[in-house]
C-alpha cells in the first residue's frame, strides 16, 4: 500500500542539447520542442504518452476559467506518529514538500464549473509526497464529498497517487474507509460521482474512492494497480504481461469504463453529466 516511485515523471532534457528548448518523451524517447510539449498538454505528439501534470494544470483543463472556489486550502499534513526514518523526520519532509510544491496537501479541492454546471472536485497532485493518501488528503476528499451532498452537486475526483502514506501509519489506512464513507453518502443521495484515474493510481487510492466512480475514466497508458508490479512478480515468480496494470488492461478486465485523451477529458465529463436527469 506504500506509494510507488515514479522516476520517469519528469521529462529529461537531452544532455547534448545546449539550449533548454527541447524535452524528451519518457515513453518513446522522441525529442520534442518544450513549447510543443506544453502546448500539447504534456502529451507526446508522437506516441500519445500522457505525462504527469500538476493539479493546477489539471484544473485549467477541466473547469471553466475563473470558476474555481477552493475548499479547505489550509489543511496540511500532521506528523501524529512523530515518524522518523533513515533520512529524517516526516515533519521535515512535510515542510520541504510544502515549500517545494507550493501545495499544502496532495490534493486540492473545491467547486468549479464544467460547461457552466457547478461540480465539486478533488484533484490530486503526484508531486506532493507521491500523491499519497494522508489524513489531510482523506479529510479534504471526504469533506468535499460532504459539500457535494449538501449542495446536491456531482463529484469528480482526479486521482494521481502511489497509495497510502506510510508515515501516517494506520491513520493513513483509515482514510480508505473515511473517503469511502463519503462516497457512500453520495451514492445514497444518488449524486453522480466520476472518478478520473491518471498515471499512477495505486494502492490504497485505487482500493478506495478511485475505483468507485459511477463512471471510471482513465487517461491512456495510466498505471492503475493495487499491488506493486515487483511485489506481484516476487509472489508469483513469473513475468507479467507488458500491458499489465495499464488503463487499457483494466478496461479489458472490466474496471475502467472509458479511456480518453487529456484534451477531450472536459468534454467527455460534461457530456456524461448531461445524462443525469435526476433532479
Amino acid at each position, binding site marked *: 500500500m506504500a506509494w510507488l516511485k515514479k522516476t520517469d515523471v519528469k521529462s529529461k532534457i537531452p544532455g547534448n542539447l545546449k539550449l533548454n528548448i527541447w524535452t524528451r518523451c519518457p515513453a518513446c524517447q522522441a525529442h520534442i520542442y518544450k513549447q510543443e510539449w506544453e502546448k500539447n498538454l504534456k502529451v507526446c505528439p508522437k506516441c500519445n504518452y500522457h505525462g504527469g501534470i500538476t493539479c493546477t494544470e489539471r484544473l485549467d483543463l477541466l473547469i471553466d476559467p475563473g470558476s474555481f472556489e477552493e475548499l479547505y486550502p489550509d489543511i496540511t499534513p500532521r506528523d501524529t506518529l512523530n515518524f522518523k526514518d*533513515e533520512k529524517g523526520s516526516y515533519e521535515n519532509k512535510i515542510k520541504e514538500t510544502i515549500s517545494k510544491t507550493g501545495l499544502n496537501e496532495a490534493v486540492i479541492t473545491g467547486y468549479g464549473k464544467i460547461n457552466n454546471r457547478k461540480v465539486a472536485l478533488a484533484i490530486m497532485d503526484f508531486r506532493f509526497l507521491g500523491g499519497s493518501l494522508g489524513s489531510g488528503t482523506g479529510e479534504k476528499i471526504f469533506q468535499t464529498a460532504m459539500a457535494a451532498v449538501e449542495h446536491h452537486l456531482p463529484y469528480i475526483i482526479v486521482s494521481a497517487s502511489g497509495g497510502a502514506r506510510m508515515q501516517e501509519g494506520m491513520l493513513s489506512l483509515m482514510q480508505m474507509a473515511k473517503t469511502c464513507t463519503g462516497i457512500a453518502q453520495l451514492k445514497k443521495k444518488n449524486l453522480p460521482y466520476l472518478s478520473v484515474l491518471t498515471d499512477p493510481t495505486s494502492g490504497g487510492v485505487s482500493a478506495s474512492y478511485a475505483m468507485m466512480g459511477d463512471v471510471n475514466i482513465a487517461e491512456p497508458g495510466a498505471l492503475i494497480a493495487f499491488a506493486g508490479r515487483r511485489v506481484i512478480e516476487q509472489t508469483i515468480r513469473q513475468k507479467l504481461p507488458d500491458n499489465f496494470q495499464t488503463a487499457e488492461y483494466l478496461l479489458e478486465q472490466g474496471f475502467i469504463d472509458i479511456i480518453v485523451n487529456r484534451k477531450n477529458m472536459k468534454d467527455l465529463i460534461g457530456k456524461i453529466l448531461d445524462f443525469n436527469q435526476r433532479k
Partner: protein
Amino acid sequence: MDLDFDKPIKDIENKIAELKTLNLKSKVNFASEIKVLEKRCQEQIRSIYSNLTPWQVVQIARHPKRPVLQDYISLIFNSFIELHGDRIYADDQALIGGLATLDKHRVMLIGHNKGKNTKENIERNFGMAKPEGYRKALRLMKMAEKFRIPVLMFIDTQGAYPGMEAEKRGQAEAIAHNLTDMAQLEVPLIALVTGEGGSGGAIGIGAGDVILMLSFSIYSVISPEGCASILWRNAKFAPEAAEALKLTAPSLLKMGILNEIVEEPIGGAHRNHEETARNIKMSLIRHLDTLNQIPLKKLLKQRFEMYARMGKP
C-alpha cells in the same frame, strides 16, 4: 518456532520439565523446587511480555501456534454454518464466513482463515484473500443485513493476496466496494484483529462500528519489512519500521484507531488458546449487547462520525 526473546522462559520451562522427569524416576521429591521455578517462570513471562518492543509484538502476532479462526470458531461459538461462494467467480477459502451463534446472539461471522499447518495454509493461501473472498464477505454482510443480525469480522492476514490473478480480477475494486457498502450496512459491525492486520487486506473486512484488537496483535498500513525496504532501503530495518509505524494495540488505542484492547493471557495467546477465546467471547458479547440496543439511524450516524473523525486535523 521459538521466539528468541522467549529464551529465558524456555530455559526455566526446560528445567521444570527436567525436574518433573526426575520426580518420576528418583525417590527425591523436587516439588518445592518446581514450585519455586514455576513462580519464577511466571515472573519471567510477565516481565518479558510487559516490555516488548513493537518488533517483538510482530513476532507474537505471527506466531505459528497463535490461535487461528478455526480455533476461535470451536472455542467461542456454539454453532457455525459455513456459507460458501461469492456468486460470481469462486469460493475463497482464505476468507470464510457463515452463520454462527454466540451465547444468545446470532451473528454472521467472517474472517481470514489461516491454516494450522503447511497443508492447510496452502489450501487457504495463508489467509491472504483474493477478490472473490472480499466479494463473498460483502455478500454475507448483505445477507446479515437482510436477516438483521450483526456481523463479526475476525482479521488475521498478511494482506490481500498480491498475485497476478487477484490483481486481474480486481483486488482494488473488491476492497473499495466493501468499504463503500459497509459504510451504509444496516446492522452492527464488529471488527477484531486477532493476529496480523495487514493493510488493505485487513480493512477490506475491517471498517466496523467497533474495532477491537488482541493485545499482541498488530494493525498496519504496510508490513514493517515493506516499510523498511522502501524508507530504509533495506528490509532488515523492519524492527525500526515496526517502531515507527506505531502498529501495536496500545499505540493505536492512543491514536483513536481502536475502541478497545482485548487482553491476551500473560505470555500471549499462543500460550493459552482457551483463555484468549474466553476474553474475546466476553468482549464480543458485551459489544453485541450494547450495539443491539442502538437504533439503526443512530448506529449509522455514529459509524459515519467515527470515520469522519479518523485523522481529522
